[in-house]
């Protein structure tokens, strides 16, 4: 008998970039296949081909033995293929119900449809508020709306693109439960992820991709994690990860070093009167990495913006190397040697429509090394960028490509490379490993360590607690806009930090 889904020889290139190379796969109903790979391995591109967003250059897709051509997402829906994108595809200004009904034939939009939406919702134990617009929903609820949208279209193949990366830890378990239910109902689920433990928990088989090729499709239960990770990383797994024993314990002794950054009693009140930051006091010594841990939205982002000058504090002072910069402009803070890797690399870190080399140069374009006779020297720009691209292993290694053509991990490397070069005194990084795979995370962490070792103070803000504990010399915990405690990462327990992170406002002195 023919397999339910048969994919043969799919190739897809974007200009000179080969995103998919001869991808083959057989899959049956009621199966959960994880797609594992580093950033830029082609996972999302493969999914986009299945869903009709990208047209493959070559190859064939067969459903139940019949070749199908998925020329548009509308055709994909006709064939029962649905996808939930990492960043969702919902109309913010509309309600859950409107979002689910968009695009359906009129016959499927009557009163019964509304009843069926609610029926499905209760079948899957989904908590969805049908009275509010999508923009007002928390992330987990938006995701449930997306899944409901796919379910309502009777999908038999559902592709989930890094579905848990946007969820709070408490939302993950109920989500995975819902996925299991889907699989049990006979749905073929593709689960794109780079979290091995999750794949262990949910998937039957794992398809491992690397550089646009399928490295293997293996049963999860009998494949050791180390083997999966080796296939995913290629030759690198025997190189970097083993050779660099977590350099974390090789900490600098910074106890006698001068303070690079001193933040004293900083308060920030938003126009609505809410207190975003309350009496934040902290200091970072030269060569020290101070981690800031905390649940997302407790003032960490705003703290980074106050320090870099994007927001002006309501009261309090900031000193850099003993000089007050409390009301200095952003430009003068940059000139003073503050580097900043912002949380949202797309919106704040990069100009996606400029090339990699332009992105690397634009904050320093007036410096002599980029100039020749008073004009920008394209050649110098290209040469400097080429060196950085090689040093940071940015792929594809072409500094003339638009930043938008690179994967998330490689985009982050551009921002990091640029900001590390600027950070003579202080480097502020916010969520530097968000959405990055294991290899890229390791690389980013090592670069940040190297910066600290050269005597620069680092403020490392992240919600990924393991990463914070791994890299920091000291960890300050933020909750409700306050620093609720400063701990030594080697002599603390997760439980202690958890308590500090969730300190209720009244318990905070």
């Amino acid at each position, binding site marked *: 008998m023919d397999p339910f889904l048969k994919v043969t020889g799919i190739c897809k290139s*974007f200009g000179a970039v080969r995103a998919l190379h001869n991808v083959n796969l057989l899959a049956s109903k009621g199966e959960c296949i994880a797609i594992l790979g580093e950033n830029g391995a082609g996972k999302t591109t493969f999914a986009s081909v299945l*869903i009709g*967003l*990208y*047209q493959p250059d070559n190859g064939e897709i067969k459903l139940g033995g019949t070749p199908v051509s998925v020329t*548009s*997402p*509308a055709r994909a*829906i*006709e064939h029962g293929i649905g*996808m939930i*994108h990492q960043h*969702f*595809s*919902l*109309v*913010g*200004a*509309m309600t859950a119900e*409107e*979002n689910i*009904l*968009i*695009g*359906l034939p*009129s016959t499927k*939009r009557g009163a019964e449809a509304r009843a069926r939406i609610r029926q499905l919702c209760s079948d899957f134990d989904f908590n969805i508020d049908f009275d509010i617009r999508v923009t007002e929903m928390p992330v987990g609820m938006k995701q449930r709306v997306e899944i409901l*949208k796919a379910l309502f*279209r009777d999908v038999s193949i559902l592709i989930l693109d890094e579905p848990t990366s946007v969820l709070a830890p408490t939302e993950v378990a109920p989500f995975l439960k819902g996925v299991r239910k889907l699989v049990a109902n006979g749905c073929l689920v593709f689960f794109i992820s780079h979290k091995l433990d999750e794949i262990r928990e949910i998937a039957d088989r794992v398809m491992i991709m690397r550089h646009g090729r399928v490295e293997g499709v293996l049963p999860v239960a009998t494949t050791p994690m180390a083997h999966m990770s080796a296939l995913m990383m290629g030759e690198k797994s025997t190189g970097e990860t083993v050779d660099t024993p977590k350099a974390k314990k090789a900490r600098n002794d910074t106890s006698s070093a001068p303070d690079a950054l001193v933040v004293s009693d900083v308060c920030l009140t938003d126009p609505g009167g809410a207190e975003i930051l309350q009496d934040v006091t902290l200091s970072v010594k030269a060569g020290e990495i101070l981690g800031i841990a905390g649940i997302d939205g407790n003032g960490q982002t705003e703290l980074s913006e106050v320090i870099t000058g994007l927001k002006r504090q309501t009261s309090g002072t900031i000193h850099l190397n003993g000089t007050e910069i409390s009301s200095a402009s952003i430009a003068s803070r940059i000139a003073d040697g503050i580097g900043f890797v912002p949380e949202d690399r797309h919106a704040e870190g990069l100009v996606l429509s400029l090339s990699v080399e332009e992105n690397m140069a634009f904050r320093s374009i007036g410096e002599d090394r980029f100039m020749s006779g008073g004009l920008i020297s394209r050649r110098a720009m290209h040469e400097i960028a080429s060196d950085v691209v090689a040093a940071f292993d940015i792929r594809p290694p072409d500094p003339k490509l638009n930043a*938008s*053509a690179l994967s998330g991990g490689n985009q982050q490397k551009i921002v990091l490379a640029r900001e590390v070069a600027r950070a003579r005194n202080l480097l502020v990084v916010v969520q530097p490993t968000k959405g990055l795979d294991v290899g890229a995370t390791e690389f980013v962490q090592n670069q940040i360590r190297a910066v600290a070792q050269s005597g620069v103070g680092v403020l490392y803000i992240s919600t990924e607690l393991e990463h914070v504990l791994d890299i920091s010399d000291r960890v300050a915990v933020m909750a409700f806009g306050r620093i609720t405690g400063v701990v030594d990462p080697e002599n603390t327990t997760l439980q202690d930090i958890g308590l500090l992170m969730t300190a209720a406002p009244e318990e905070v002195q």
Partner: protein
Amino acid sequence: MIDLVLLGDVLAGTARLGTPIAFAALGGVIAERGGLYNIGLEGQILAGALGAAAGSFATGSAVIGLGCGIICGLISGLLLGYMSVRLRINQLVGGIALNLLLAGLTAFLSRQIFGAQAGGARVKGFSQIDIPFLSDLPVVGPSLFSQDPLFYLLIGLAIAAWFWLMKSHKGLDLRAVGENPKAADLAGVPVFRMQYLAIAVSGALAALAGVHLVLSQVYVFAEGMSAGKGFIALAAIILGRWSPIGAICAALFFGFCDAVQFKLQFTSPEIPYQLFLILPYLASLIALVVLGAKASAPASVGLPYDREHR
């Protein structure tokens, strides 16, 4: 009593002067709800006006003139659609280009068609229709219920457009396209087809503004007779918060300001009339500053949708 007569005059003027702006604004709302800026309204008014004048001139029938005007609008809308949807060029630039093209083309064609009579070829137009009983009401009767058929068409179209956009399934799909075309695409909405439809309808509605100018107001085509109405319509879209009904109200408000300034010109001849001419534009500026600040456009308006964009 004299005040009531004055009020009646102003109301009638409001309806007459506001109708072309309202048609164009309605067209703009449909396009922008579908995610496309229609900056070409001004040119499309001219296209509609020329079509109406030529159709009526050739056949002596106002209804055929109306049809020809609508067809000219559809074609100009599709041309803008081709530039915006298929070629994905900047929609502001495309719209301005269309305005320049149509301003020149209509002037050229009008000389070809009307020849020596250019500027003087009177065509058959619509006459006013009195609605029984209602037109006998004092003040509002003669001004609002004794209008030309296009005014009633406008009211009907505005209500129909509102119902279609806000209550029908296809209207929901179109709004989704304007808010988030990728989401609409993934949900199975034929994004490009919807956008072509919206921009074609938008062109036809803008053309109706020109039809009204020719067949209900002056019965003659004149070069540049749109006189900025397409641009005031753009302001009416924002002021009306992208709602068909809102846009009509905003357009009629601008018509009202225009009617008032005409009256003031007659009643206060000692004041330079140029000051009164400013009034509608000043009102639109003030209204936009005061009321337009909070308005939120469809989220993806003006952004060309490219399915394979990374």
